[in-house]
């Protein structure tokens, strides 16, 4: 658990961070967000003493960080930065082993660990361990950066806009992998970003900062639904209904009683189409291979021509996909339904636009109520605060 109490950093007259207090429970992801210059990075860098606080205390599991030598403290805190900062003269494996070596681990301990971590971040060690950083793409370099931060198994991870410098597609992949790794490893993570969608996707709690102060510290849902000020409301954006979809995943709304057959299109029983529009085609092990649209059958097309073969990697979503991404997939394909498969491509269900709409409608009503009335109207306005 990380506890910040009245942490302040002043540079002469300027106060970069002003009496910030919050607590991050172990195993949770806390995202620090806010406009540039709000003090989020300064706050992060005070936790591993790259910047010394002017006043206030920071505790990690009850221990004041000022009680350890800065170098010693940092060796037990993972650190990932936007520019990655891989050492160009060392191989990928040597880069990953940096902190274990500083801690005096022996080779037979740090070497397997480095290879294991490369595997975890999705870089097969046989191919990547001996490469040099200049041979990597931006996304691969940042994966190595994450592996390096995890190498000595620190309980706490500080990440400063780690996915800020890669293209949007790579960023989405890295975010999904980060979420997966985090589910496995359960680190306490403090993550700085200026991207609201990223914060909503990854955070257990969001600390929204502005001009050195903490505006609101809460779950993403609460920030979206009960903003503490107009600033929070505006910062989270007007498309909050859509953003909320970034918090829910397919598993929450999918139906699992879908019709499927392993016998190919020939054997589709007419009854299968009674209460479902699609019948999915799978192989023996259940891997999605295509579907049949019952309306096409109704129109008189012979069953053997009615099937649409698909690649599940492109045409399906996973249970952990966010509703926002599922919706965007549907819009992209022009379908009102999309198949849900597990990591191996086995069909597990189907999610419909109607189900997503229902979720949105709930959020909409909720937010409409908020905006019409009571809550936002009662918020202190900007001038009165300052």
């Amino acid at each position, binding site marked *: 658990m990380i506890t910040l109490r009245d942490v302040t950093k002043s540079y002469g007259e300027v106060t970069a961070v002003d009496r910030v207090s919050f607590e991050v429970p172990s195993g949770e992801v806390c995202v620090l967000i806010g406009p540039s210059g709000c003090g989020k990075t300064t706050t992060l860098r005070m936790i591993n003493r*790259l910047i010394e606080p002017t006043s206030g205390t920071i505790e990690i599991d009850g221990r004041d960080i000022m009680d350890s030598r800065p170098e010693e403290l*940092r060796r037990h805190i993972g*650190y990932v930065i936007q520019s*990655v900062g891989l*050492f160009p*003269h060392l191989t990928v494996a040597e880069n990953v082993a940096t902190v274990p070596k*500083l801690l005096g681990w022996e080779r037979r301990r740090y070497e397997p660990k480095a290879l294991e971590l490369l595997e975890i971040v999705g870089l097969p060690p046989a191919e990547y361990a001996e490469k040099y950083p200049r041979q990597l793409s931006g996304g691969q370099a940042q994966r190595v950066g994450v592996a*390096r931060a995890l190498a000595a198994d620190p309980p706490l991870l500080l990440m400063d806009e780690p996915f800020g410098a890669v293209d949007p597609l790579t960023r989405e992949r890295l975010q999904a992998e980060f979420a997966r790794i985090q589910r496995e490893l359960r680190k306490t993570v403090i993550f700085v970003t200026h991207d609201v969608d990223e914060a909503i996707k990854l955070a257990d709690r969001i600390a929204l900062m502005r001009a050195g102060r903490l505006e609101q510290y809460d779950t993403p849902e609460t920030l979206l639904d009960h903003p503490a000020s107009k600033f929070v409301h505006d910062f989270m954006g007007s498309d909050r209904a859509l953003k909320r979809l970034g918090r829910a995943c397919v598993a929450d709304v999918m139906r699992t009683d879908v019709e499927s057959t392993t016998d190919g299109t020939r054997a589709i029983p007419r009854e299968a189409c009674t209460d479902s529009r699609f019948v999915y085609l799978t192989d023996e092990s259940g891997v999605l291979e295509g579907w049949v649209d019952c309306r096409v059958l109704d129109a008189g097309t012979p069953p053997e021509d009615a099937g649409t073969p698909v690649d599940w990697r492109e045409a399906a979503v996973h249970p952990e996909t966010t509703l926002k991404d599922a919706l965007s997939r549907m819009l992209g394909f022009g379908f009102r339904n999309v198949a849900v498969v597990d990591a191996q491509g086995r069909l597990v269900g189907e999610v419909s636009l109607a189900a997503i709409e229902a979720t949105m409608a709930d959020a909409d009503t909720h937010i409409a109520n908020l905006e019409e009335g009571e809550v936002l109207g009662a918020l202190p306005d900007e001038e009165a605060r300052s």
Partner: protein
Amino acid sequence: MMLAPRMRPVIAAVAGVVVFAWIVGQQDLWVRALSALFPGSVRPVYPAATVAELTLQHLRLVGISSGLTLLVGIPLGIWVTRPSGADFREIVSASVDFGQTFPPVAVLALMMPILGFGLWPAVVALFLYGMFPVVSNTVAGLEAVPGTLIDAARGMGMGRGRILLAVELPLAARVIMAGVRTSVVINIGTATVAAAVGAGGLGDPIIGGINVQNMAYVLQGATAAALLAIVADGLLAGAERLLTPRGLEA
């Protein structure tokens, strides 16, 4: 046998050293070559010492003065890029700048009253003259290390000393070595003027030849000094290549 590409310049340089040592050792060869070039000359070869002896004197002079330059110049360059030395950065760079613009012959003349004749006034003059490329390249090499790398290193718990040794110096090695190479090669040429204060070396036949108007002597000293400079340049280029971390090779 396949040779790693980074070993090739090293092998070539070592071969150069062997060939050079052989040429320098063949006094007969010099006599015959210079006799052929200056058929009218009674004494085409400098008589006071063999080419091998002169070369060894020259190497001693260059070795001591360049050694001192590196011993002082590299730490000085490192120091002015540290917070403790940052205030001295301007004065150091101005001084080494001045050291190079001030003619070595004048330094020799100024040092004579203090250090007398012989090796030491020459060592001082050459030491000062060679500082500029070493200090300025050390500073430039260290400054070229991206700040984000230092930040990452600090963030992982490296101390200042370790960052210098494990990150900054390996990354700056190539640029620093280029400065060392320039300094040493210039020194080999400049060291010929040291003969003027009796420091010996390959400047002896050059200055002696000018005094007695024997151009064969001048050519003898100049040729040997030039060959020595070429061989040293190759050797240091090989060292530069070896000190360049693999990850930085193009």
